[in-house]
């Protein structure tokens, strides 16, 4: 958090300094780009250590994820929940709060979507799908608002509580699909199928569903909110300095609760589109680890919603291309996690790089003095 506190302070100080703004914008592009490149580069070294030609491996990765409609649609399909969860993390992190609970909120969203989606078959799609999205979002929001309230009124660290709720949500979902929501007579722990009118329509000749439009729309709305509204500016100020808001007359406690609620709602919709578009019924553990990948997405996007579209697609492409890479070179799919981790490390290392230089410089000046 400290990291962005500093960066944001600098942004505000330099509002009038045109040159600095341009430098900041450049950095916002360069840091993720360099981070991703370095991640892939070190990944290449790890590939060579396994005795695999990295060019062959990366070509297979590219071909399996971005060349041809089947690959592209698969990538976009995998990217959709990643982007949504990433947006949820962006939303809270811009205000200086960490939501690591995207996974739990996503599960709750899935539960909400299933309750609406397996009933009300008489509704037209135009009403049924939005209803499922709203209810799913509310379910996700409820799970996130509790950590928000605890943080605002009891000072409890939201990192701890959102992690705890991930487990509560996963076990709650598991309890539902083996109990009240279980398909009668089925051997598997799963719910009834989602009824026709609540299913997201598909693109031709691909598994990709129209939830992708919702993802793009939401990213656009958030971009507008963050950059063009007073509320978005207040969020940014809060991210920089929690006391500043107090003087500006904004109630920080209220803002924490609001921010966590909305962040949870966004994560909830990720669960909704997975159920209505991909799995078509509620199952257990359908997104293990997505909450953590969301943090990678948000970071690589530099907390910019439009950037999240790109970084989410990038990570989605890595996930999709991984199986082609495995077929072509025998490198296990799990190798992708290592590249992902390296990228996160490089990105945060590059973000503080200028600050480290300043510190080293200071120390040198003190020695010379």
């Amino acid at each position: 958090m400290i990291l962005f506190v500093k960066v944001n302070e600098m942004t505000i100080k330099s509002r009038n300094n045109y040159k600095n703004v341009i430098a900041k914008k450049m950095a916002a592009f360069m840091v993720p780009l360099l981070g991703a490149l370095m991640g892939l580069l070190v990944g290449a070294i790890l590939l060579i250590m396994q005795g695999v030609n990295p060019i062959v491996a990366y070509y297979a990765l590219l071909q399996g994820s971005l060349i041809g409609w089947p690959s592209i649609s698969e990538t976009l399909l995998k990217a959709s929940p990643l982007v949504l969860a990433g947006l949820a993390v962006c939303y809270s992190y811009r205000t200086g709060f960490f939501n690591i609970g995207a996974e739990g909120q996503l599960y709750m969203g899935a539960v909400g979507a299933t309750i609406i989606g397996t009933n009300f078959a008489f509704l037209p799609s135009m009403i049924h799908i939005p209803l499922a999205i709203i209810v799913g979002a509310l379910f996700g929001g409820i799970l996130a608002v509790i950590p928000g309230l605890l943080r605002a009124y009891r000072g409890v660290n939201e990192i701890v509580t959102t992690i705890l709720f991930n487990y509560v949500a996963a076990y709650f979902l598991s309890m539902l699909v083996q109990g009240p929501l279980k398909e009668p007579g089925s051997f598997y722990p799963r719910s009834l199928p989602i009824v026709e009118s609540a299913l997201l329509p598909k693109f031709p000749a691909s598994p990709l569903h129209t939830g992708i439009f919702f993802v793009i729309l939401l990213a656009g709305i958030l971009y507008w909110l963050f950059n063009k509204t007073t509320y978005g500016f207040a969020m940014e100020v809060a991210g920089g300095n929690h006391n500043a808001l107090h003087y500006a007359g904004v109630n920080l406690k209220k803002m924490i609760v609001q921010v966590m609620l909305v962040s949870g709602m966004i994560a909830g919709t990720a669960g909704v589109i997975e159920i209505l578009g991909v799995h078509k019924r509620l199952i257990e553990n359908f997104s293990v680890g997505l909450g953590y990948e969301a943090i990678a997405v948000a970071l690589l996007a530099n907390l910019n919603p439009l950037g999240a579209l790109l970084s989410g697609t990038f990570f989605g492409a890595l996930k999709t291309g991984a199986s082609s890479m495995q077929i072509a070179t025998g490198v296990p799919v799990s190798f992708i996690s290592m590249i992902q981790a390296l990228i996160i490390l490089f990105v945060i290392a590059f973000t503080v790089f200028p600050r480290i230089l300043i510190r080293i410089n200071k120390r040198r000046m003190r020695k010379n003095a």
Partner: protein
Amino acid sequence: MHDFLAIVFTAEFVGNALKYATPLLLASLGLVVNERSGVMNLSVEGMILSSAFFAFAGSYFTGSPLLGLLAALLASLLIALVHSYCCISLGLNQVIVAVALNTFCLGLTSTLFRIFLGTDTNVIRANGFSFVRWPKFLTEIPVLGEILLKQHIFTYVALIMIFVIWWIFYKTTWGLEIRAVGEYPRAADTMGVKVYKVRYLAMLFSSLMAGMAGTALSITGLNLFIDNMSAGYGFIAFATIVFGRFHPLGVTGGALMFGFAQSLQIRMQISDINIPYQIPIMLPYLLTIVMLGIIGSGSVPASWCIPYFPDEE
């Protein structure tokens, strides 16, 4: 209800609960030391996973569980060094570094495991630690023999560590330094305590405990490895710290509670009681959250998760 009580109040059940609690107890007792020094160590999940894997791999290739343990400790130590360098020396965000390291460990262990396995689909097993052999007349002591004397060496290490850590924390200068660094590093620094050194050492100690926890997870009992074997153990250890209010004895209570819940859950899955087995495993988490709501932020070290820069204001 009667059936339920009949399950819980047997010596065998309590002994099993202690077995499940062992990795958790080891990890969280180590964790409490470095959390008190002001470093948030969510990487413990990755440490447990990697050490579980390297303990298995080490034991599989050398045939000796002790060398497995050594490999596990080294792997865990290495992760701790990276985490410490990033979070203590560079002052990077501790949550993000941990997320990255955990992801890396998951990728690394699964990838190496695939490479070792080749195309073999059979389950491979390594040599593991067996129960400590006590003299026969001791194990035949009714209840206690069943609970305490049919355990692996790690359980005894964990039980001893409870008192060792409590003693270090509250009876030695080291303990005072660790707590001071976690509360107010600048004051500690002024008094001549080397903040970085204390934080590094606390972290390395914690990683050794996590290494043992990982070893206890993979090569005591079934002696095999599966992808993402730790499955959140590190985060549960983290929860026990919070539950135990950053006090070694409280943490012990937390770890035993989670171990008990785990063991109850497994038992309920195979019996035909009409309570969903998810309830006992969910309860400790909910209890921790409720407790946090009641006690608020009181017990958290004041400089938790805040990097310290000696030459900045």
